[in-house]
């Protein structure tokens, strides 16, 4: 029973990792930029979730507001920070991204204060019995359900709609896609909107599970999400999902059984090193 509980805990954590890392993988797949500032959008999502919930009393409304606003912020970030750097080597954009991320932590601190924010009345704090003797917290259930819904929506969008097909075409061959009349600029905006909105959803979920958003809440996701996309095989969406879930589960067990030896974050990177030794292209990456 304990193992099952730990496994479920891993899936909860993995769902959140997946939501965050997906945006990163989308950006990498399209632009070959390591988008560290993505974690700042995750933090912004968390803050908006708490602020809007406290103001309106509706968590559902807050999720929508956070996703839309952060999606737009992601588009703005692309327009202002990355677009002017697209013809430079990718490390220039990476440096800009790291700078933006560091600045964002202090901006959150200046605007919202150093103490962080909490829900006035934390929603979904109870638990329910999933089956005999096995309890799941409402917030954790929401994390899993919301991730499944959002990721299925994304899968539907990318395989069943014209926009999605254009998007995938652009990722695999931008020049060819453009020759076929795909508006690359639109695809890039869409890419940032979706990736950022997913990170915002993750931010709201983390805020819900911790009942705390802080200026520095993006610091762990900023590098762990990088580890996840490398693990999954850079730019591979399925690989990213698999890596996120695997990491969530490994951390859940690692925290208990390896906690004295390795930090939770160290576990992630030890796993990364191990996988890269065996499969340098990542879990589902294509060997080049």
């Amino acid at each position, binding site marked *: 029973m304990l193992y099952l*509980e730990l496994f479920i805990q891993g899936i909860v954590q993995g769902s959140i990792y997946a939501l965050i890392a997906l945006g990163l993988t989308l950006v990498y797949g399209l632009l070959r930029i390591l988008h560290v500032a993505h974690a700042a959008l995750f933090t912004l999502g968390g803050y908006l979730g708490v602020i809007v919930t406290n103001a309106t009393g509706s968590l559902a409304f807050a999720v929508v507001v956070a996703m839309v606003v952060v999606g737009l912020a992601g588009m703005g970030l692309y327009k202002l920070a990355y677009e002017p750097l697209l013809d430079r080597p990718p490390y220039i954009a990476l440096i800009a991204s790291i700078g933006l991320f560091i600045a964002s932590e202090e901006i959150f601190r200046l605007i919202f204060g*150093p103490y962080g924010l909490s829900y006035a009345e934390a929603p979904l*704090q109870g638990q329910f019995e999933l089956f005999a003797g096995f309890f799941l917290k409402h917030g954790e259930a929401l994390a899993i359900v919301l991730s499944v819904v959002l990721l299925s929506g994304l899968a539907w969008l990318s395989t069943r709609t014209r926009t999605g097909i254009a998007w995938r075409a652009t990722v695999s061959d931008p020049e060819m896609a453009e020759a076929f009349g795909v508006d690359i600029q639109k695809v890039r905006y869409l890419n940032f909107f979706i990736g950022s909105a997913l990170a915002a959803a993750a931010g709201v979920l983390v805020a819900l599970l*911790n009942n*705390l958003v802080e200026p520095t809440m993006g610091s762990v996701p900023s590098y762990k999400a990088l580890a996840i996309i490398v693990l999954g095989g850079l730019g591979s969406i399925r690989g990213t999902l698999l890596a996120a879930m695997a990491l969530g589960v490994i951390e859940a067990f690692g925290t208990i059984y390896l906690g004295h030896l390795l930090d*939770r974050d160290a576990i992630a990177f030890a796993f990364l090193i191990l996988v890269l030794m065996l499969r340098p292209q990542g879990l589902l990456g294509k060997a080049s």
Partner: protein
Amino acid sequence: MKISAFLTSAVAALAMAGGSALAEPVKIGFNVPLTGFAAADGKSALNGAELAVEQANAAGGINGDRIELVIYDDQASPKESVPIAQKLVEKDQVVLAISGSYSGATRAAAGIFQESGVPYISAYAVHPDITRAGDYVFRTSFVGQVQGRAGAKLIGGTLGKKKVALITLKNDFGKSLAAGFREAAGKYGIEVVAEYEYGIKDRQFGPIVSKVKSDKPDAIYASGYFFTAGPLVSQLRAGGIKVPVIGQEGYDSQKFIEIAGTAAEGTIITTSLDRDSPAAETKAFIAAFEKKAGHKADMVAASAHTAVKVAVAALKAAGSSDRSAIRDAIAKAKVEASTGTISFNGLGEVRKDVQVQVVKDGNWHHHSVISDAALLAPPEK
């Protein structure tokens, strides 16, 4: 009575105004994290220190000279605190300095102050090596071990719980608490059934909650700061664990109660500040701090306030800017402060009682006091 008090303070204020126009202010250095992960504690500590300086200046400063707090942001990082310590010593030429920061930063800076012969008081950093830097370094709060031993007495003695699970923050604060707890555990018949460690950036404790549930302890001794303990306690309770959770001064903030919400109720901690204290000093501090900061007082604020108060008393007693005279005055100090009566042992460690507080109806309240001098004896070397 009232009029004469008013006159004295008016005369003092006049004397100070006249004096400060001519005399240099007395400079006290203050390193404190105002950005980065510890910025929240830093802000509280700064408010506490500033309040103490304002109060001291209003009461005539140091024998008529105005006190100036020279503040630097150290981001709770030794990388920052070392150059700051050098700047405070050489450029600002402070007569004394205070750390409103965490152990890493304070420990690194302590060496510089010791070498330069500038007295240094750590307000709330817990690492035992800080005062071991030398005879110019003092501490107005408990070392981790002392508080850990107090935690063992609280759980095994006062509460009578014997099977305890430890959830330890993996830094010098958490580790030294756990070490102190284990040291005294046997004496109070406590069996440590399991120990889990977590990193300072962790906020999600799902796996630990699941495991602790299966350990079925009588009580949980969990170290952390309000920003880790808030999520931890709320997740323990949401996971259906009902046994008492015992924490320490790192929890000591209204923010802990805000984060954990109703789950915070009944959480007991060992700390330095008694909210329901009948002592005039503590009551006055709590009221004045709330007025200045706009939020409730916490342990770091009270500790920084205490450290400045000790510094001011020593500066007054020394009567000069001679660093060694100031050092001697601190060593001999016996000061009534918001965190109790402060005096130091040979190593510069504070001797005072441990305050036990409990969350009741959304606020910290008095639970008990631990004043076992032998148990709470700080290290002598």
